């Protein structure tokens, strides 16, 4: 039973346009959500997070939206840049628990074309 799902294995967008990456979760106990970015031959790096008391969190070009009733979150990248091409992982856990308790999705490979 996969508790965190990223249903799109890949996404391709044009430079300057918006990238929208989606994530769904099934465990109602999850109340803290994170996005990580991973380049080839590197480990994942933390990108942005959101707790369930918010429905939006913004950091520069990156915005995460949370829809608790739908158990759905999305990461918006505006404008997309070629350097954003990477694998993006969505992760979820219960807030204030050990980061190792995060459950990861299988990732979405984003390709931004110049």
């Amino acid at each position, binding site marked *: 039973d996969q508790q965190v799902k990223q249903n799109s294995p890949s996404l391709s967008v044009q430079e300057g346009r918006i990238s929208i990456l989606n994530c769904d979760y099934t465990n109602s106990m999850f109340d803290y959500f994170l996005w990580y970015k991973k380049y080839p031959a590197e480990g994942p790096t933390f990108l942005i997070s959101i707790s369930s008391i918010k429905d939006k969190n913004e950091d520069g070009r990156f915005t995460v939206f949370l829809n608790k009733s739908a158990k759905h979150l999305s990461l918006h990248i505006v404008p997309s840049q070629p350097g954003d091409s990477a694998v993006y992982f969505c992760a979820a856990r219960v807030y204030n628990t*050990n980061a190792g308790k995060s459950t990861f999705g299988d990732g979405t490979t984003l390709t931004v074309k110049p």
Partner: protein
Amino acid sequence: DAGVTQSPTHLIKTRGQQVTLRCSPKSGHDTVSWYQQALGQGPQFIFQYYEEEERQRGNFPDRFSGHQFPNYSSELNVNALLLGDSALYLCASSEGQGFTDTQYFGPGTRLTVL
């Protein structure tokens, strides 16, 4: 300042063998977590070490064991290797038992079991 380093980069073993992977955390970090990332999937938490003791463990069998040294570096040992153990093994370091989003991942060790 060196980040998280892991060795070796790649490793090929045969079924039934034993393997040891190594991790040096980021300077100033005292907590090391290990993850297994199978092809096409997200990272799965194996266990975490803090103050030379295993503090948290994911859903992995006892064939997976570890150690943390006084200098905070860590080893992951896998006994009786199975084909299904083929994966990228990621190490992440953090401060204070990982109750933070700021985990720093190493580039990983690619293990292939033949």
